[in-house]
């Protein structure tokens, strides 16, 4: 599984595609938790939209395998508009 629910964090691991959107949405609806992206290698736009909608924060460690600009866009409590410099 690319999405793992743990008591105090939701962990996204590896290549997270659009097919994971349903599961992520359900987990965030059940209980808002920080997201651990330290081992996430790819994050589909559909998942980014859900994260914005949930207002979930990123767990410590950030998202080292995602592009910097995407990390900056993600690490904010509200949804877009968002902008970033490279």
């Amino acid at each position, binding site marked *: 599984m690319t999405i793992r629910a743990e008591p105090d964090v939701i962990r996204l691991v590896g290549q997270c595609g659009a097919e994971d959107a349903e599961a992520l949405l359900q987990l965030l609806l059940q209980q808002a938790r920080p997201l651990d992206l330290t081992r996430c290698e790819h994050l589909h736009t559909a998942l980014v939209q859900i994260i914005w909608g949930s207002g979930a924060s990123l767990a410590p460690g950030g998202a080292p395998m995602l592009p910097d600009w995407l990390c900056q866009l993600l690490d904010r409590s509200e*949804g877009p508009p*968002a902008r970033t410099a*490279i």
Partner: protein
Amino acid sequence: MDELLEQFLIEGRDLVAQAGDDCAALVRNGSTGPVIDSAFRAVHTLKGSAAIVGLRPMEAMLHAAEDLLGTARSAGAAVDPERARALVACIDQCDRWMDEVAAAGELPGDAAAVGAEIGARLRGARSDAAKEPAPSPVDSRWATELVEEERAAIATAGAAGRRLTAIRYLPREDCFFAGDDPLALVAAIPQLVAVRVEAREPWPALEQLDPYRCLLSIQALSSAELGDVSPVFRLIPDQVELAAVQPAAASRGQAAPTAVAADPTIRVDAGQVDRLLDLIGELLVARNQFGAVAGASLDGGLDGELRTSGAAMDRVLRNMHRTVMAMRLVPVDRVFRRVARLVRDTASRLGREVELEQQGLDTTVDKAIADALFDPLLHLARNALDHGIEPPETRAAQGKSPRGTIRLSAGSVGSELVVELADDGKGIDPAVMRRLAVQRGLHGAERAAELSDEEAVQLVFAPGFSSAAEVTDLSGRGVGMDAVKAAVERLGGRTVLASRPGEGTTVTIHLPATAALTSVLTITVAGERFAVPVEAVVQTARIPAAAIRPVGTGQAFVLRDTTIPLLALADLLGLQADRCEGDRRVLVVGSPVGLVGLVVDDFSSRSEVILRPMTGLLSSVPLVSGTTLMNDGSVLFILNLSEVIG
């Protein structure tokens, strides 16, 4: 060039001409009915073809034209003049693009933008107001504004004063369903300077969020050239606008690149290329094996990923294989030159006057094939001179020009290389061949009489038949035709001979364009697996036991009005097989005496394998032409069917 692309360029020209005429008629007199029908069909087919060869911007533009014509067609209405002019522009653009594709093999870098503009003209005037009008691509004020607003980011990136490419990307709401991942596309933009993501509507609460509707609008700046950015969006030209922006501050003169025109070729040792090809072959085998293992894995999640990455690997491998194969290509010219020299020498020695015509000298062929072609061509040329072309006085007496002609030509036909050697000599007399067939015990008198002229002439290929001295003298074809045929077969090709008494003989050699990959059919005989080259198999069939009849001491069956002798392959290979009672599985193969059916236990679908020639002790086993490593790692013998039957 890609074979499909070539065909597209031929077919496309006709369609463009047809659509052009029709659209011009629409502009002139606002026709309806048959003209619109005809234009619709031409545009529809052209669009489909553009899609097949992957010319996405052309397809998208033609799609708009097809929609327009389709609407007019079902409404029975005329196309208004403005839209009709857009149609003409669209067809003209297709014509220009086809020129570019013919020259460069692909569409120019601005194709997406140009196509989108024409597409907007085709769509823009459409009556259905439901669609919001596409923003005019000429208006690039947004780009200048974007550069203005992102000045800080540009400075940070050290791109101040440089030419930039501005990207405005409005993903379709349902783009996730098409497999698009907008942010991943943004990540693929080279030399990103800044990214802005905006919501197209107030962001919904999580409970209301449709996770599969894309709500984003994206703008970005890159310091790469527009031509380097546009390929990222080549599949979605309708959702993106690109603009090149030259900041006003840019006063620094761009130094023109001072490229030195260098020879684009390097010399590589042929052995190294062969080694590379071997390695790719190993890789292909490993990949097949990997596929088999992946297929056996029952883990659904893993399986999907494996399949995707396997497909990507396949593409790269095929590309690599094609590229290396292309490296091995040499012009057939170098073989022909050697043959020409020999023809001149031999002609003067024999006192024949011969004109040598050569065609298709720039046809390229795999080096291995070029080298292996020399001997058969030498045989054929020698035969033509020795036994085909008559002495000048004989020719004159028959009303022929005293100078004989030998024509040597090469060309590609589909995926085949065709090499032909033709002479205008005395040809082969079928009557003589029939008589000799009886004398040499090949056929009974009755059967020989039944042979058509064409069949009789083919007897020169029968092993040993043509080596007899009297044949040489009487038939005009001499030594070694069976050797020629065998040599060509070793290359996976076939030899066709046509001859008319008094008019000459033409021998045509058909060869596969590539030699290294062989298509084989895997068969099971007496419980053992073998492979047979697909070229050797005319067809596979299941024959009910009831349809098999005894003929003499053997068996035969009827396939589409032809009686075909049936042999057990196990017997021919000297293997012990159980007699089966039910349906027989039969390979129908060609042989010197016509079609033959070979009974096997089973056959599976074909696969591409690397044929390894036999080495060592095994190389003296004539029934087997080589070995191959199969997907599961086992080694199969590839049967040489003509030896097996002979």
